């Protein structure tokens, strides 16, 4: 039964407690911005976007065009070596080959040397996970628990250092660049450190702590495909040895696609190379260790400069120009359609 007095509200009676609050939130009356797709907003956004994209695109294309790049596929040129490497029993046999090329113009500025691989599926799921970051951080961990298999331990139980398919498949060609100046051959000075990310070099990769490197890796063995153990990756430079070896670090940063290039060396700008690579004849001396023919892969060596937008990749510039053009055109189309429609509207309203 209802309280009868409630039907005759009296003065002074307490406000009914069941009455909802009169707050903006509860009454759905919060102040709000109500954006609308007005013709002005839409057209200005399209034209502004168009202008922006076009200008960025043009800038990108221009800067990308200023990049000098030389790419040399040496998988065919070193066919002997590649045949040799197809047989894995020859893993410890050395094989060298040379590739000549000519620079018609100077390459000015910083010159970077890359090795490029094609058809090498670094982004394969099983490949990507096949590592132990804890191990690479110098921790003494049980790598059996990681996804390194089957590159975890040898049959005798000796753990691999570093473990996993990524480390095992590390690119181990040695590429040297020689400048042929007037029949004299000058080795182009190359920097092998400073090529990796600071965080990788200083945070992500640490050698196990010990008085020296070889003892730090005592009790472990090199990965099966390696020719030398990890602590001998760079015998000259203690700070570029073991896990913190730049080549190793760069290799461990797996690429997103099956075709990729990794920074190998930088040209050290001294002497005649202070401004970059002068025009002339050059030779790559390659110690061919990394087999690719088996999986129909290709190997490249690339020399390139960079600009603010990175290396030479015309894609972004073109894409910007295209979308800028499209945006501008759409802007015009919209204008036309809208104008036509507005005429119709007035017609109807009459």
């Amino acid at each position, binding site marked *: 039964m209802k309280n009868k007095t409630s039907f005759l509200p009296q003065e002074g009676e307490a406000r009914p407690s069941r009455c*909802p609050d009169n707050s903006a939130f509860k009454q759905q009356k919060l102040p709000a911005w109500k954006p609308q797709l007005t013709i002005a907003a839409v057209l200005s956004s399209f034209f502004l976007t168009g202008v922006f994209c076009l200008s960025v695109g043009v800038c990108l294309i221009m800067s990308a065009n200023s990049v000098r790049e030389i790419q040399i596929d040496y998988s065919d040129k070193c066919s002997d070596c590649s045949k040799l490497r197809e047989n894995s029993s020859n893993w410890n046999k050395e094989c060298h080959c040379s590739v000549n090329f000519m620079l018609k113009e100077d390459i000015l500025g910083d010159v970077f040397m890359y090795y490029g691989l094609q058809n090498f599926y670094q982004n394969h799921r099983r490949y990507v996970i096949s590592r132990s970051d804890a191990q690479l951080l110098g921790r003494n961990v049980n790598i059996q628990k990681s996804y390194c298999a089957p590159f975890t331990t040898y049959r005798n139980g000796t753990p691999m250092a570093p473990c996993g398919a990524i480390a095992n498949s590390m690119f181990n060609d040695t590429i040297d660049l020689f400048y042929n100046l007037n029949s004299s051959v000058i080795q182009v000075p190359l920097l092998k450190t400073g090529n990796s990310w600071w965080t990788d070099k200083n945070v992500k990769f640490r050698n196990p702590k010990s008085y020296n490197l070889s003892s730090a890796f005592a009790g472990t063995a090199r990965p099966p495909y390696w020719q030398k153990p990890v602590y001998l990756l760079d015998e000259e430079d203690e700070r570029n040895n073991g896990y913190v070896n730049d080549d190793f670090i760069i290799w461990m940063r797996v690429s997103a696609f099956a075709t990729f290039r990794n920074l190998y060396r930088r040209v050290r700008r001294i002497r005649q190379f202070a401004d970059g690579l002068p025009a002339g004849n050059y030779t790559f001396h390659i110690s061919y260790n990394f087999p690719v023919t088996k999986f129909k892969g290709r190997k490249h060596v690339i020399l390139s400069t960079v600009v603010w937008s990175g290396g030479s990749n015309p894609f972004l510039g073109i894409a910007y120009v295209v979308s800028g053009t499209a945006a501008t055109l759409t802007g015009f189309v919209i204008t036309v359609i809208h104008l036509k429609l507005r005429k119709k509207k007035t017609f109807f309203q009459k």
Partner: protein
Amino acid sequence: MTVPRDMPEKWRRVRGPGGAEEERRVRANAREYNEKFQYASNCIKTSKYNIVTFLPVNLFEQFQEVANTYFLFLLILQLIPQISSLSWFTTIVPLVLVLTITAVKDATDDYFRHKSDNQVNNRQSQVLIGGVLRQEQWMNVRVGDIIKLENNQFVAADLLLLSSSEPHGLCYIETAELDGETNMKVRQAIPVTSELGDTSKLAQFDGEVICEPPNNKLDKFGGMLYWKENKYPLSNQNMLLRGCVLRNTEWCFGLVIFAGPDTKLMQNSGRTKFKRTSIDRLMNTLVLWIFGFLVCMGVILAIGNAIWEHEVGVCFQIYLPWDEGVHSAFFSGFLSFWSYIIILNTVVPISLYVSVEVIRLGHSYFINWDKKMYCAKRRTPAEARTTTLNEELGQVEYIFSDKTGTLTQNIMVFSKCSVNGHSYGDMQDMLGHKVELRERPEPVDFSFNPLADPRFQFWDPSLLEAVNLGDPHVHEFFRLLSLCHTVMSEEKSEGELYYKAQSPDEGALVTAARNFGFVFRSRTPKTITVHELGRAITYQLLAILDFNNIRKRMSVIVRSPEGKIRLYCKGADTILLERLHPINQDLTNVTTDHLNEYAGEGLRTLVLAYKDLEESYYEDWSERLHRAGSAPEAREDRLARLYDEVEHDMMLLGATAIEDKLQHGVPETIAILTLANIKIWVLTGDKQETAVNIGYSCKMLTDDMTEVFVVTGHTVLEVREELRKAREKMMDASRSIGNGFSYQEKLSSSKFTSVLEAIAGEYALVINGHSLAHALEADMEVEFLETACACKAVICCRVTPLQKAQVVELVKKYKKAVTLAIGDGANDVSMIKTAHIGVGISGQEGIQAVLASDYSFSQFKFLQRLLLVHGRWSYLRMCKFLCYFFYKNFAFTMVHFWFGFFCGFSAQTVYDQYFITLYNIVYTSLPVLAMGVFDQDVPEQRSMEYPKLYEPGQLNLLFNKREFFICIAQGIYTSVLMFFIPYGVFADATRDDGAQLADYQSFAVTVATSLVIVVSVQIGLDTGFWTAINHFFIWGSLAAYFAILFAMHSDGLFQLFPNQFRFVGNAQNTLAQPTVWLTIALTTVVCIMPVVAFRFLKLDLKPELSDTVRYTQLVRKKQKTQHRCMRRVGRVGSRRSGYAFSHQEGFGELIMSGKNMRLSSLALSSFATRPSAGWIETLRKKKGSDSSTAASPSGAADKTLKDGRPLSPAAPSGRSSVSIHLHGVQIPHHTRMYYARATAAGGRRGSGGAVTAPCPLAHSSTTCLLFI
């Protein structure tokens, strides 16, 4: 008594010990004996869990949900290392989150169930233990106990009635909670036990009952009482069932037969049918499709994987040998299938269901919080009792409404009258709310009359002046009203009169007479005592010429104290005007004009007339009447002829007009809902005339209508014929108006809607209950539906609760439209439960409808706000939410698919696993939730002003399969760009410092960042209503993304878990690259600009209803409504009058026999046999003083006021006032129904007082189209 809404299934299982009970043996007052059988105690338990069982039981229940099991299955897949393409936590975190949210919700629900259980279990009842009555809690009542019930108490368990305060062991119960019937029922104890009146005798009672086991049959009980070596059969007539309320019986004793879960009430309350919205069903279908799509993608990628492994992977084995156990490319493909299922599972978003629930919950709260749906008068806010149906409120096409209590207040108000050719009462404007807005004139002051009913209001002072001036016609008019009726009066204390009218109309008339100084005071079988302007006059009641449906009138023949015999008659104008004396011709014409005017306003009219009878004629007639009354055969006919004879050549006195008060704002609401293309069907148990009358007064029916078809056939053939005719007429009309050919063409498409569209002109259909029964038969239902749907308004009268449900079911079945049923009474429960959405009118006495409903509020007019504002917004928000949700998940997931082609189909993910884990639950969940909860496309007042805005919901335009595919396409488009633009950029690119750019982690960060930005921009584009919360969530999500990104890529976390947080340093290195940002910017531009262009063009070229089209349509509609408004007044009432509509035959005879008069009322009226001498003394004094002060009516008033007796409206409790008619009189069922309604009305009126004060905020929401 709250009937648990969802009873756990357990009920059924735990019934009786050791399997099914075959018979029940109960011995009174023998707890030890009864305990042997381990009958269920009276403690009820509707809660599902307790603290210990909550976790396991709840988890078990949750995993019965397909979605949850699916994710559990994924989780298991992820634990298989060969397959696991994602860490286990990417699934478990969202899953745990979802499970937790659901568990918290379940726990809260269960807590409230515990509370309500406790409340019920702790009710007190008096139990006879060891010869004394003891207060015990309900849960401690045992089978075999004898308990005492007092008036108005709930019956605690199923009892065998032993004895009661009433003679013959009778007792009255109300079974509204049980079966929905609001009338009272009589139960009688078997004679041997009815003498056990006091506790000592009852304590000795040791009878044993052997009866049927517990069952759910409410109207059946079979058993035997064995007592003193005798057998007494027991039936349902001897039982009081739990849930009933004892009425009009001071006390009774009962023996507990079934307790707690065994009671019939509990056996009957099954799980309420779980309602799903159409969006739910669509969503489930779509999820299944997506699932199929997922499998397809999995298969494609698995085949790809097999081929790749066969062609490339084999050669690549030197660097990447196959996993152990994988020996063939085919097997690898098989594994890759499962891996891809894991990765791509985010297309079936786990958070979808929980987000939908959260949004609906938010919408429900908005409904609960809505101040404009709060009725201050009844102190009831609107309540969303179900939180899962909100968006369906935006799709309603059919409303099925109850009439009494829903459209009308069931309050009859004497509003106008015509006396001797003069019309009174015109000051009151009948246009409802218009009056409320204006300054109201002061109501007539009745303070001169101490016996006046303070709740009665009248606005025309001229009538009172006429009374005071002694206008004989007016006096005779009110004298008639005070004499010619079958109302019973009860005077609890002096001057406090309560009328118990069998129909509210009659109550209103007698009350009007009372206030104008002609107070019907009391009656005996032979007399009627009336205080005429303060003078007590006792008329001799010679005869009551009772009402029946054919006569449509009733008369009384009275002898005044002066000895004059006069016949007073009131009845339907059509009947009465024919029976007047020819000299009344002029007066008749004037009165007829008045009657037309009243009828035009939707008032119920009656014509009043009198006739003086010669003593001799009366003697003769009375003699004949006596003979006829005792005649063995053809009694009815003979009586009717005699009545006919005397009711002739009468003198016209005037006419009355009674307003069946509509709820506030009903016509406006109906008008707006009609404009919103919602069809309103009224399903009422009332008579056809009443229903049609209300149909007109609430503007469902108008005189503009081309035709109102009335189907009243009694046989299948008649009904079919009437329906066919109606359809033919509609078709003919449309053919003659429109292009016949095109119409035919449309018809041949056999779609109902096309028929609807093709029909020109407005039609209405009125169908009677008995015709409806035929129309609902299988072979005719389609025909009926087609006809009914072609009509603008449908009124079904005299329908049973079951038929109400059938009609709703019919529309549900064939129209594929969303139906809403609204009602207030127990008889609406079936339809409320059947309809997609059930709305209960709360704040009434019965709560049955509210309990069964999904939404409840106290005024019909709130329906427009519920549908047009809340429903529309809910639908819009839900659709926008779903579109965006599917979009964002496809954009997110499909990137993996494209990447599959570049990573050797190896199920490598594109993103960091943490990104995958958090994408749905952190980065993108809140902005879309905020949009889903807060978005508004147009302000609320616009949706009232432009009801057409409601249409997209009905046509399901905002989210359907087409929209879904558009969203999916957009998602896929986004994913393509999201993958291929970074791919193009990264393929050979290097960083600005010469290092490699295209490493996997940088790619992952770039794609993830551009994805988050693109979907954030997209939600920004979708959000039409940026509140602070939206801003906070959208910007917050972006901020959170970057914060989490940098945190996840930080040194600290990496140092702690180097194998988990491999992306160390990635964020700062990658995001420092201008190329990356240019890529992100380009992706965003390319993903968003086409969407902007399409949206704008759509808006510009094909605007949704919201623009030009809507504008022009609205103008047209407005004009139309205005037109209607103007025509309304000048209507000629072909349908006016019907005798007091809810009147029943048979009461005249009852009164004359005195059978229905309680001892107390008889005593009061005869002033003699009242036991209390003091009381008689007072009455006598009063009588004397009244006659002495008769000349000045105000004297009596002074006196009463001096007595200090408050003239308070302390109302009779509606239900307890019923008693008078039920004593030993078998009243036919339909009579009871009306009777109950009348009493309910009395109760409401009693408690409601003069319910004219408008609910605050009431009119602000009724932006009426009628006056634009």
